[in-house]
């Protein structure tokens, strides 16, 4: 009779699973629980059912903030992915120190603190003393008070979110491009494919996974980003950049409505799950 084999593989997952349960699953369940109660000043009140969710839906400034969030998220993610792809394709054709240098430069905005980045750009956009307006005026144009103008502030927020994530998209997509077997490219050339055909018929389908993963990561990152909007525009002027995470912040830390902010958190989570599901469906990605 042989010894009964012990499957140790489950034990290997224990530390990571415990961390996930402690820091992800339990808070998630607790937030869901809180969302069904009145929770003013962290004091559990009466059970209110779906009232917190209904209030989120019927409050105009929350629905408006969702709209702003969707616009800002999709615009900044689209710009990041497009420019990241262009840069990745460009760098893929280069090698050596130059390519390494560009990759490092591109990643700096992603790795620096979001607070620092937000403050940096806030000062750059300052109406009279900021570098942006100094340059604009030196070119003979009238200065723009970027952070104080509703449309300009929205554009500025999209710009800064894109600036922050282009490097990440570039590196992820570049990793996908480096993984393509050279023989496939050579074969396409032998078959008479030009550069565009190689790009659209060979390279892009082969890097679909890395583009999709980058898109998912950046969409979720931009959708749930609280720091950059808070530091850069503070949601203003006149709520023009009041993204949903700022609304959630105010519900929690200004009005102490933890029940409502929990309901809003759950709604934000549902939105991100739906967005991810849509991406996977559209890209026909197999999990």
């Amino acid at each position, binding site marked *: 009779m042989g010894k009964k084999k*012990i499957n140790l593989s489950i034990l290997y997952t224990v530390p990571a699973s415990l961390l996930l349960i402690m820091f992800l699953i339990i808070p998630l369940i607790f937030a869901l629980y809180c969302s069904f109660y009145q929770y003013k000043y962290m004091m559990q009140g009466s059970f209110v059912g779906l009232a917190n969710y209904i209030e989120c839906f019927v409050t105009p400034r929350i629905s408006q903030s969702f709209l702003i969030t969707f616009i800002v998220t999709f615009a900044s993610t689209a710009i990041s992915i497009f420019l990241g792809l262009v840069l990745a394709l460009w760098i893929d054709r280069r090698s050596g120190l130059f390519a390494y240098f560009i990759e490092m430069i591109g990643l700096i905005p992603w790795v620096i603190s979001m607070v620092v980045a937000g403050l940096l750009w806030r000062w750059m956009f300052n109406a*009279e*003393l900021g570098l942006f307006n100094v340059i604009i*005026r030196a070119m003979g144009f009238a200065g723009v008070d970027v952070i*104080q103008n509703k449309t300009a*502030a929205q554009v500025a927020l999209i710009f800064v979110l894109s600036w922050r994530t282009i490097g990440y998209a570039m590196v992820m997509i570049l990793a996908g491009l480096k993984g393509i077997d050279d023989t496939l490219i050579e074969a396409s050339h032998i078959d008479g494919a030009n550069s565009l055909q190689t790009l659209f018929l060979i390279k892009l389908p082969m890097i679909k996974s890395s583009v999709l993963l980058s898109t998912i990561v950046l969409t979720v990152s931009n959708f749930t980003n609280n720091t950059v909007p808070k530091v850069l525009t*503070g949601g203003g002027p006149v*709520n023009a950049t*009041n993204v949903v995470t700022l609304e959630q912040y105010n519900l929690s830390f200004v009005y102490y409505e933890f029940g409502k902010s929990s309901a809003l958190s759950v709604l934000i989570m549902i939105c991100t799950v739906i967005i991810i599901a849509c991406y996977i469906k559209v890209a026909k990605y197999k999990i």
Partner: protein
Amino acid sequence: MKRLLVGFLLLLALFPVIASGSQEGDGKTEIVMWTFLDPENPSNGRNVALKQMITEFEADNPGVDIIVEPKNYATMTAEFLTAHATGSAPDIIWCARDELSGVLDAGALEPLENLFLGEWSEEEIKDIDDAFFRFGERDGKHYTLCLNKNALVMYYRADLLEAAGCDVPETWDEILDAAIKMTKTENGITTYGLGQSFPSGYSDPQLLTNWLIDKQGALFDEDGRAMWANQVGVDGVNWITHCIDIGVTPEGCLNLGTEDIISEFSAGRYGMFIAGAVRIGSIKDTCSFDPKDVKVMSLPGGCVIDGWFAGIWSGSKNKEMAGRFLEKMYSPEADLLWVEVGAQAPVRASTLEHITITEDNDYLPVMLDAFANGFITPNDMAYAGWKINLNEAVQRVVGNGMDPLEALQQTADEFNRANGR
């Protein structure tokens, strides 16, 4: 080998539990305090004063460590409430005025009579008995002591005011007149007579608050409902929009925060602006002009008064020792230290006897007048978000062209709904 591996994995899984600290490890008692001050950062006089108090207290009480965990002032109270709910709050907490009502409702603070206040003589109580002391009272017990009295005053540049040929303004018309005369453009850079800020985020109360207090005496009615959607409020909003229309306040004020406006004043961009009087030390330290020209004045109708209220967490295992440190921070010697090193206003009447008003601390009479006659929200119920609500009324009028009364009504409704009125 397998047993060893399993043991190692279990040890790894239990690491967070094993590694977690104890409040009384190594035979030492640790008193944890959350505040926005950082005693390890000597760039601020208040930090230096706190550091000295901690050093003295630890020397007088061997075996006791005061651990200060600096926190963001905007979220510190919310963090405390969360920590209270989960049983992991610090021993000493500094609460913002607007949030104190909620903290008391949550039963998160220990009555100070149970710790040290019950032993104080009537004379000692009389020395601290003012609006701030009474603000921390509920049902006959005191839960907090105000360690950081503040008044929202008007800062001004004495040199610009003198150059404009104006006296220190006292009425709304005089403020507007001085602002007009101080506004000038040189080398493409404009100095605005009156800096104002109306952000959606954290902000100090702005002139609309003072207008309402001056003209109708209060911001809220007896039931705690907003009382600004009326003709007085409309006149106040119109006064502000007039300042923007004639260019004495920049249009960009809609999205400036308190820190922005302080930085810009220090850079020489404004003649006057509103901020907490306790900031005067750091403003003088960083301004690009002669610091002696930084002065403060009261506002028509009196100033809004504010403060940070320190209390002992009701769940603390070291209440007595924490109470002793709070008492130390409130002692006559500490009060003098807060004033002389930290550029704060005294919390004890007796401290005033030791202070001579000079050019360096001529802000003190303005602060003391504000404490005696200023406006403070009651602590009987929550008044969360009213500063943002008033700012947003101005935003909607200036930014969206909304009718002032409609904007004020909308924000009053938002305030009432958010505070359960």
